[in-house]
């Protein structure tokens, strides 16, 4: 006994009290999952690159047309015809030839003309984030000195536009439609789900039957009907927002159901009774006590649902029901590559597919990691 008392420090040790909130524990666990972190990093860089700075990453402006109609990807060279090694990669000039029998265009490299590719080069003018004027591009050939030079790492489309540039710009709309649509789904789904679960009775009945009604509809015909209802004279951007609303309107039901189920179990917890006994309003109980308890599930569900949203946009645009030509989205790009002729003559237009695949894989990796991490007390 005496020993214990002697060793007890007179002043409490200056140990820093680390108190972890739920989200801090989640972060700790999430960090340990390499695959999920990779997914997260991929998505962050995709969103940053495609949504904020596609103008900088691409060598040209979106509507920069050229004579190189349906040109295949230009080859990057380090070694010239004389076998000399160049540290700076370069492209050869391209010459278009027409086969008079088949009317097929072919491009051949003109090895007499060499154009070096430089980083951070001045080219087409644009406004970064819509207000910062700039003409700096991550890579490209000097357009002022050699206006006839072009670098098309993923080929060109029927108007001679750089396909890679189009993919970058298209990612902006495709990625944003998934995110904005999902945010709206969460808002719809959570609000209706929490009301359904908390109030029960008639409100519950009405909301649940509506969900069933929406779920019972086959997706594509419903989209078609709704998309057909969008006036044709609307500007493409209005169509874009309308499409987002349609996508989330059709999809909130599942989320509302899951939230309702969680609320049904949470509302029986004594802390809800404690808040009620202190006089808390319904809104306070729902949004302060019940909804935070469902957040972890909602985040996982939402993360795993965003790919569905992106794919829906892609599918609808591919069918010609979604975004339309002046806009560039991955669905619109796929529509360009949808014919047998396109696959035969311009297979590089399928470069859109890997971008979609990687995005969706990244979302699934992140979602799986989040699902494990959001249960920080579980053992895994």
């Amino acid at each position, binding site marked *: 006994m005496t020993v214990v008392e002697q060793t007890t420090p007179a002043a409490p040790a200056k140990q820093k*009290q680390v*108190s*972890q*909130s*739920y989200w801090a524990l989640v972060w700790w666990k999430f960090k340990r999952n390499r695959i999920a972190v990779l997914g997260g990093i991929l998505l962050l860089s995709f969103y940053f690159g495609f949504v904020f700075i596609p103008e900088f990453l691409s060598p040209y402006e979106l509507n920069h047309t050229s004579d190189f109609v349906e040109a295949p990807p230009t080859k990057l060279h380090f070694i010239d015809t004389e076998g000399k090694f160049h540290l700076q990669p370069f492209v050869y000039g391209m010459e278009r030839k027409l086969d008079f029998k088949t009317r097929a265009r072919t491009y051949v490299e003109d090895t007499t003309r060499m154009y070096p590719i430089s980083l951070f080069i001045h080219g087409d003018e644009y406004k970064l984030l819509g207000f910062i004027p700039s003409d700096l591009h991550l890579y490209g050939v000097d357009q002022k000195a050699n206006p006839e030079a072009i670098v098309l790492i993923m080929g060109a489309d029927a108007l001679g536009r750089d396909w890679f540039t189009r993919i970058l710009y298209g990612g902006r709309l495709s990625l944003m439609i998934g995110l904005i649509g999902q945010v709206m789904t969460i808002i719809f789904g959570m609000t209706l789900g929490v009301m359904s679960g908390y109030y029960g009775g008639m409100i519950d009945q009405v909301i649940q039957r509506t969900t069933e009604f929406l779920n019972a509809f086959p997706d594509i015909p419903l989209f078609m009907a709704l998309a057909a209802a969008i006036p044709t004279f609307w500007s493409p951007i209005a169509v874009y927002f309308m499409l987002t609303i349609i996508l989330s309107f059709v999809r909130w039901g599942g989320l509302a159901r899951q939230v309702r189920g969680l609320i049904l179990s949470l509302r029986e*917890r*004594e*802390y809800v*009774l*404690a*808040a*009620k*006994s*202190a*006089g*808390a*309003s319904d809104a*306070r109980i729902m949004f302060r*006590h019940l909804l*935070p*308890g469902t957040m972890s599930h909602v985040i996982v569900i939402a993360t795993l649902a965003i790919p569905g949203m992106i794919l829906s946009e892609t599918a609808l645009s591919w069918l010609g029901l979604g975004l339309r030509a002046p806009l560039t989205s991955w669905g619109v790009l796929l529509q360009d590559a949808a014919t047998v002729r396109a696959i035969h003559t311009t297979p590089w237009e399928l470069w859109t597919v890997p971008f979609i695949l990687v995005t969706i894989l990244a979302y699934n990796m992140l979602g799986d990691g989040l699902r494990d991490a959001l249960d920080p*007390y579980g053992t895994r």
Partner: protein
Amino acid sequence: MAPDMQTQTTEAKAKPRNLLEVKGLKKYFPIQKGLLRKTVGYVKAVDDVNFFVREGETLGLVGESGCGKSTAGRSIIRLYEPTAGDVLFRSRHLGGEGNGLINLMGLPPDKMKTIRKEISMVFQDPINSLNPRMTVSDIVGEPMFIHGQRMGPETEAVIVNLLERVGLRPDHLRRYPHEFSGGQRQRIGIARALSLNPQLVICDEPVSALDVSIQAQTLNLLQDLQQDFNLSYIFVAHDLSVVQHISDRVAVMYVGKVAEIADAEELYSAPLHPYTEALLSAVPKADPLYKSDRIVMQGDVADPSNPPSGCYFHPRCRYAQEVCKLKNPELRELKPDHFVACHRAEELKLEGI
């Protein structure tokens, strides 16, 4: 029944005033079946309960599981909207009619909110009664926030004071419930209940989920706080020894009805209801030589959706007679301050402890 209580109130002038009077309280939960949710019956969780609580005293509410103790406690502050009955309360903020008591039933929401400052609750489950996503300071301060106090240094000082009062440290303020032991969590719950300076605290089995050693600490804490804050308690429990320790008066409930109410000592030494006697015989005694003559009750607690005829206890009562099957006994005052609902209370000689 109700008139008995009122005469009692006027007679006992020397005793403190009644803080709370519960009269004919009923809570029936509907049983719904089928697609159209037709009500096919009712679970009579609380069926015509009458009792009162005096200022500064502790009323113990005991009974087996499912006898409606917790429901009665929750119905008093309308966490469950009672089916019928009156709950009269002596409010500091709202004036009452005549005798200074205000009826909580049918009180509009804004006035009910004021009453909620004066009656608070401590819950059973120390894990479930604290929101895992909120810090101790948020939890304890929530009632104050709900009643319009903004978070700031002053409110925080009040919270720190409350935490110290219940035996926690100020540096616990920013921690989350999962970082505490069961006893500590219950202390947080108690601090929350006291945050609005209530008159009456309804303790809904506050120690049932705790270790025995922690139970004693928590009970002592509750008693100290009662002294310091001049609180009245309604103490719901199923452990008779716990109730004996803390209560001034005890009410025994059986299937939604009050079987017996008396001063704690009187009830334990000279019970008048056979059900009380049976419960008391099951209390363990710390005497190795003691030979138990425990009364083993036959069968289970009656089904509150389909209670037996007459006295609800008669199928399990070893003193039951014909009258018990036919007539429901009224709660009557047999001795001063000793109410019992039994036809044979006068003739039976029952054993206490």
